[in-house]
């Protein structure tokens, strides 16, 4: 039987799926994490640092779900606070300054819905991030590795090349949230997941992503090494192509790409 959208949701959320730390360990030959937004905090739900991938020096940014219960709690399961998005922009500005590309790993249920998050401007931080990455003068490669949860995902998913793993999902709202509103029944999540078209092949057809990265048989959770190796290959190919483009042209092409979202049919 063909895989349903909800099967994909389950795979994308599988706790055994490789997370940011696994990808960094398997893809990068070194990684130096840098902390803090220089304003109030060091968010643990979104981390960043300079790294080497193959022969490329890059800035890595990514949602951090955490591997243990303690890490999960500390990182809010990868639900970033405004401080996380502001840290991401601070570090990306450094990458731009030193002419290094940015690679982002997207895996979040969504931006953190908390009191402090609202008070420190969750909406403003996401909005700024979208504006910021649309004009950043260095190549940006995005990999949606697990859950691409709405605005919290998009905030670090504006770039020149959008890669997405075969069993990842990317959606404007969680299937449960959508089912709760439009079906008035959270249990109808499988129907909502189908209707929302949130799988990598569907999103490729809709023009929301550029490339699907194949996963090992049964899913990335079965073989972290093989999954990471495919992601690494796709990142390096994307970087190689993007680095050839003069930066002004790159920004203009990025704009045209963003500008075209939604104009594919009708």
């Amino acid at each position, binding site marked *: 039987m063909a895989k349903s959208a909800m099967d994909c949701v389950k795979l994308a959320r599988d706790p055994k799926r490789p997370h940011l730390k696994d990808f960094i360990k398997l893809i990068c030959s070194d990684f130096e994490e840098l902390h803090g937004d220089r304003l109030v905090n060091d968010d643990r739900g979104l981390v960043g640092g300079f790294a080497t991938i193959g022969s490329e020096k890059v800035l890595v940014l990514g949602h951090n779900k955490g591997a243990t219960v303690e890490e999960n709690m500390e990182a809010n399961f990868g639900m970033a606070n405004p401080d996380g998005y502001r840290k991401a922009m601070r570090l990306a500005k450094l990458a731009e300054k030193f002419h290094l590309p940015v690679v982002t790993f997207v895996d979040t249920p969504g931006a953190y*819905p908390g009191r402090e998050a609202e008070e420190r401007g969750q909406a403003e931080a996401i909005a700024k991030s979208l504006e910021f990455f649309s004009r950043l003068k260095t190549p940006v490669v995005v990999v949606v590795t697990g859950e691409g949860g709405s605005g919290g995902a998009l905030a670090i998913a504006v770039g020149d090349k959008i890669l997405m793993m075969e069993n990842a999902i990317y959606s404007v709202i969680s299937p449960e949230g959508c089912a709760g509103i439009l079906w008035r029944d959270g249990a109808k999540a499988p129907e909502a997941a189908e209707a929302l078209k949130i799988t990598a092949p569907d999103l490729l057809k809709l023009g929301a992503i550029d490339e699907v990265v194949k996963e090992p048989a049964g899913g990335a959770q079965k073989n972290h090494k093989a999954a990471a190796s495919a992601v690494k290959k796709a990142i390096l190919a994307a970087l190689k192509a993007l680095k050839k483009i003069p930066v002004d042209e790159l920004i203009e092409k990025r704009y045209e790409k963003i*500008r075209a979202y939604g104009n594919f049919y009708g």
Partner: protein
Amino acid sequence: MSWFEPKAEKAKIPPAKALWAICPKCGSHFEKAVWKKNNAICPKCNYHGRLSARERIAQVADAGTFSEVFRAVSYSDHLAFHDATGPYKAKVEATIAKSGETESIVMGTAKIDGHPVMLGVMDFAFMGGSLGTGTGERIARACEQAIAENRPLVLFSASGGARMHEGILSLMQMAKTSAAIAKLKEAGLPYISVLTDPTTGGVSASYAMLGDINVTEPKALIGFAGRRVIENTIHQKLPDDFQSAEYLEKHGFIDKIVERSELKGFLAKMLGYWGF
């Protein structure tokens, strides 16, 4: 059957809803005519209620100066979306037929106290003011036209967020509108964002929060996540004024809360300071 006749008699008494306006903030009842005469502002608590896009345009644009653009840019049903109550297409077509609007934002060129602007006003009555592909396209085009004609951009937001019926492409409109606004700002043109009640979700997390200045009206609801979602996440009761205009101003995300009667003058004054 004469037994059923009295039904017609009953219908002569209008239901309470047709007579009374209830302030959603303080719960006070007013005659509808009073509410309307007071410009949808609560006479008791000064909550600034919702206006339609056309009502707002009439209040902000100089008489006879609003010239609508992009009316043909409407929704797209990329997903052939269908939920428990039927197809999205039927729902949005019914909204179009009922409202006479073709998207959740009405866009045009206008003058505000003589200052030429590109003016966009969202209408919460159109699918909850949701951000669809048509909405995003109109805003992106407005930025481009503003750049071509050297006009400042003024957007009034009123929205529950992205339109989930349009799936990922509605989410992508957050990126599209933000990118277009970034270009507008690079061109040195002003963008004033007026966040009206309510501005939440994907709209507050994109163009609505990106104004060179962000202004709002008394007691408007502005936020990212819904109150109930937050309460369920943190298991805490939130303060009553959480996500109100006043709360956001206190926390530094709003430049000014402006009374409706003074809004037009305020916009003109700011454009005047900046030489537009």
